[in-house]
């Protein structure tokens, strides 16, 4: 009789990396023959059937706990106090709170709280799994003892669907389409993407567009600031469609000429993998977990020199050989994130733990 596995996380929705990873792990655990359940505080109605409310949590000490850590919440204390003998943390990283100063006091507070809780929890877990080496280094620095890297599991089969026709018909033309995918939050530095685009458009190619894809909920001030910037630069080919459907997401990757990431803080950055999958050349700023995820692929920029970034976009667009080589490097890197391989790694780690 296998031990029961319980996954805990503060909020679960659909479309974000942590939620997707939680649901994927649930499937992997079922494949392994483990009875498993997910509990969360905030549950999006769309997945309410798969997740239980934390109020209903019932567990005995033999159950294995998997706790997803990405932000501060009352769950941290709850997990610390649970009597279970085997507890695993999956650390997705916590954004440094300062990014949210003057933008959203609530998120600012939760990020501060999260950092404090991360310190408090250092002796709670049997094993701490980090999405990237960058995340793992943080855990080790805080004094976590048993740590390992387990990249996020991304099921690329899910992306093999027909893209949204309207988007493809509207934008699949001779324009250069610059794409970034990620929540509109200050640590992702959308302003630097806008500045890069401004330079590229003004000095190199007027026939170009910028797509900033991602939810902006709770980030009104930041969005207002970005809009003002766009207004000041007098740019009219920037598209910020907010939360979109999966079909639309696939369509944006299909029409993209280049993926531009200026983010200064990422725990893993799933959109990099998505770009690799859709063969979109990546230009990314060297920060946080981004070099870990890219490995020896894509183009990494060490300084935000906008003329150089603009010229890089141009070179990728105009130099066919260069573009092919970048895409080839990304294809090789994508093999490393093969879902079955990572699932097997997880299975091995898990079997050993569950036996103890």
């Amino acid at each position: 009789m296998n031990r029961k596995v319980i996954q805990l996380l503060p909020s679960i929705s659909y479309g974000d990396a942590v939620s997707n990873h939680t649901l994927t792990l649930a499937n992997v655990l079922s494949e392994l023959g483990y009875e498993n359940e997910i509990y969360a505080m905030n549950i999006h109605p769309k997945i309410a059937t798969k997740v239980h409310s934390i109020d209903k949590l019932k567990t005995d000490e033999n159950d294995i706990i998997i706790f997803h850590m990405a932000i501060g919440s009352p769950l941290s204390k709850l997990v610390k106090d649970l009597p279970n003998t085997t507890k695993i943390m999956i650390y997705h990283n916590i954004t440094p709170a300062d990014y949210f100063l003057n933008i959203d006091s609530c998120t600012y507070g939760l990020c501060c709280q999260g950092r404090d809780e991360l310190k408090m929890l250092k002796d709670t877990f049997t094993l701490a799994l980090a999405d990237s080496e960058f995340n793992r280094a943080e855990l080790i620095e805080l004094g976590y003892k048993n740590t390992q890297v387990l990249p996020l599991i991304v099921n690329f089969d899910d992306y093999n669907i027909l893209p949204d026709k309207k988007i493809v018909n509207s934008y699949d033309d001779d324009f250069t389409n610059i794409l970034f995918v990620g929540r509109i939050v200050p640590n992702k530095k959308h302003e630097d993407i806008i500045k890069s685009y401004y330079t590229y458009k003004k000095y190199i190619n007027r026939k170009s567009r910028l797509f900033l894809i991602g939810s902006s909920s709770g980030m009104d001030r930041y969005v207002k600031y970005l809009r003002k910037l766009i207004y000041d630069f007098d740019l009219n080919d920037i598209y910020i469609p907010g939360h979109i459907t999966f079909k639309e997401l696939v369509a944006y990757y299909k029409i993209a000429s280049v993926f531009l990431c200026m983010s200064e803080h990422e725990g893993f950055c799933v959109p990099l993998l998505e770009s690799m999958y859709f063969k979109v050349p990546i230009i990314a700023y060297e920060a946080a977990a981004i070099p870990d995820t890219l490995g020896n692929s894509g183009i990494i920029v060490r300084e935000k020199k906008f003329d150089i970034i603009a010229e890089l976009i141009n070179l990728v667009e105009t130099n066919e050989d260069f573009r092919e080589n970048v895409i080839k490097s990304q294809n090789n890197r994508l093999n490393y994130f093969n879902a079955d391989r990572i699932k097997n790694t997880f299975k091995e780690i898990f079997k050993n733990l569950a036996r103890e």
Partner: protein
Amino acid sequence: MSNNIIKIDYNNIDVEDIMRQIRENISKRNYSREDLDALEKEICITSDDEFDANAFASHIATNNTHWNIQMAGNISNNKRFIGPLIVLFKRAIRKLTYWYVKFLFTQQIEFNASVTNSINQIDRYIKYAKAENDYQNKYYSSKINNLMEEYLRLSKEISRVSEENYKLKELVIKLENDIYMLRSENTEKINHMKEELLVLSKEANKTSEENCRKLEDALNKLQQRDIPLLKKELEKYLRKHEHVDMDYTQFEHKFRGTREEIKRRQAGYLKYFLNKNKVLDIGCGRGEFLELLKESNIDAIGIDLNRENVKYCNEKGLSVVHADAIEYLSQCDNSSLGGVFMSQVAEHLRPNELISIIKLAKKKLQPGAYIIIETINPTALIVFAESYYMDPTHITLVHPLTLKFLIESEGFSNIETLFLSPVEEANRLPKPDQAGLDEIISKLNDLIYGYRDYSVIAKNT
């Protein structure tokens, strides 16, 4: 390579070359240094130029008090002696330039008035617009709040409905399982019941057909007024149930011979049943032959109509039941018996009963199994003087040729007839010296003092 502003880590790309291309391109284009420097400056998110309403109000107040410039101010000078002279001089200058300055002043005042007025109007408009905006804000805020509340309520409702839906789905799955289980259980039961019903209905049909046939026969006979036949049937029935009121076990003990003697006489039949199973001894009596079979490890069962005999045999550990031969044989499975042995029974049976037993035995015996029927030999006249009439339950005697014929006509093969239990030499006629007479005497002997018993032995095909 690592000092480069860009990092590309694959063999077939030369970063230096890429950087060279980039630099060439940059130099070809008219990048504005100023523009790029401005871009590199961090723009502070909180640096919005906020509108200062208080400062604006104070400026307006100043405008309103100072727009009308006083052209003819008081000219004074407090210096002793020279003061009045300066005043006089200033007044003279003012008077002299008045015609020119007055025109400018008037224009300035007109302009001031117009600007102040415009600003006052703008101020009023802003205040009005702000009030309107505030009102609308308030209105839409309350609307948004209502919508938010409605949204939250609906979200909760959706959660609740999803949860219920989930529970219902689980319930449906459970019910489907239950139905499936019940259906398979019931199908099994129903099939079983169908089978039983089929057997019962077959039996019922058989019984009812039989009863009908019997009733029809009886009715036919009655209708045909075949009274003699009915009488005959009645007699037959009565005969079947007639009972001789005597202690037959004792009688057998006295006249049949000792068990050892019987066993010795019957030992010769054993070879026909070697390596067989389920041998049936019809009318097993005191179980002598059953005992012989048991000693040879041959599985056998005996039947007898005499309850005393059944009890006697059971006490001796022999498997014997109280049963009628025809009934018992009818119930046996076809081709199931390893042999049928019936010694000294045929003479107690009606001819039809004997025929029925032979017919049934043919059907129930395994192929290759033997039937042995031993009875009194009516071809020796002495049996009439001795055994036949000695036993009051004897009904008829069967001629060896008749029995052979009956057995043959049922399809048995390898039929042999053994004559047994000869009259002892001492009890026969003494032989005279003449051969002719001798022969006569011998024949007479055969006729009068011949074999007491005979048996017919046959093998099933």
